[in-house]
């Protein structure tokens, strides 16, 4: 049908909709690396991040979004990681952060 243009569109919701998001990939990632679930959001990884000092890259935010089933752009974001490993040194929960980067890239190459 020929839609009328009223000069605006119906804004799309920004909410993370856990009823609509498909958590299959997220579950797979957590099954391979259950320690990722222990992230307490302290921000140490982002604070020391070499890539984050130069770009908008935020490791904590990207892996949290992935855990919520928001995969769009995660692969490209993780590509910004230089795998320097400083985040792994500071993580108070001992998460293999570099492993998380590689795992997410492996699992979400399609997204």
């Amino acid at each position, binding site marked *: *049908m*020929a*839609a*009328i243009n*009223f*000069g*605006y*569109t*119906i*804004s*799309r*919701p920004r909410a993370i909709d856990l009823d609509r998001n498909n958590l299959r990939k997220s579950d797979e990632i957590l099954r391979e690396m259950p320690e990722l679930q222990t992230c307490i959001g302290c921000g140490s990884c982002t604070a020391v991040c070499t890539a984050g000092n130069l770009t908008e890259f935020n490791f904590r935010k990207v892996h949290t979004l992935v855990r919520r089933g928001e995969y769009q752009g995660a692969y490209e974001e993780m590509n910004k990681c230089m795998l320097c490993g400083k985040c792994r040194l500071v993580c108070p929960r001992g998460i293999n952060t570099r492993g998380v980067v590689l795992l997410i890239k492996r699992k979400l190459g399609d997204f």
Partner: protein
Amino acid sequence: MMKRNSWQDYQKQIADDRYYYGRSCIRQNFFPGSEKAFIDILRNDLGRDLLDDPMHSSCTGIGYHSDIVPLETIMTVVARQFALMNEAGYENFVSSCITSFGVYTEVLATWAEFPETEEKARENLFKATGREFRKPASLAHTSDVVFHFRNEIAARAKRRLVNVATGEPLRVVEHIGCHYAKIFPKSGIGGSEFPYVLAGMVEAWGGECVDYPERRHCCGFGFRNYLVQANRGYSIANSHKKLESLAPYKPDFIVANCPGCAMFLDKWQYTIAEMEGTTYGENGHGIPVLTYEEMAGLVLGYDPWALGMQMHQVDVEPLLDKMGVEYDPAAKYLGRNGKYIGKPASAVVNCCPTDTVYGIRE
């Protein structure tokens, strides 16, 4: 049916007679029949005294909420309305608009909390008009008054909110409007989370309210969100969200408390249909949106065209048929004294114009 056991914790004093009527800007333009119906119901059906004073003005709430009218100005306007009420010998203020009601409530609360602002308003009013004012003995929204008389109206009912074909109660979505009780929960019947003002009417008149996930969500008017064309996408997105959430409950109609909500929930159905092809309601002809006066008027046996229901975007005829309301289809667009008032172009959400073939507009 919903267990709204908390509503009785929020009671307010509603005057029983002698009201000073404050009209609504939006309703005088979009639902003029509703304000007329309120006056007629109170005076003729319930035998109450109400003054419809031509001297009073807009409360300037739309300007206030769009950052055009400053606080001091709106306080002075409110002070003037009270002065007019005092001069006419009334002390029960009843506002026909949720935003106005919110403004009056907010101004009275601000004056109580910051007495210097009240002094300033008194000074401004006196300088500008030579008037002085006393605060109202009671402040109510028009729906509070209809709620107050819901049982008297039920006793006089000619029809009930019941499907005459099945005998089942009509399923009603009630929408309250943010400024009714979200700012001051104690100012509304039932508070802000489980308001009972409309639900009480629906239940008293034989209908059944449905609760749905986005019941508390705003209609999206949001003043600035609507008034600037580029922002309307935010505005319509809210009504869209509500309609998506309530449609699975198959309501027979929506009743709205607030002039803006009634307008947007009704008219956005047309816009959504034209923009995206999504339609709601039976056969995709939209879900009728009523004001509480229209609902009360139908219950009391008023003629739907006298109530102004031809002004709706979504046609109300399917609802009238369900309720067993007798009406003259040919008289729909005849105004006062039988004068033709013009007719809207046909659209997907209008089911009655004969020049539309439904569902195949593509």
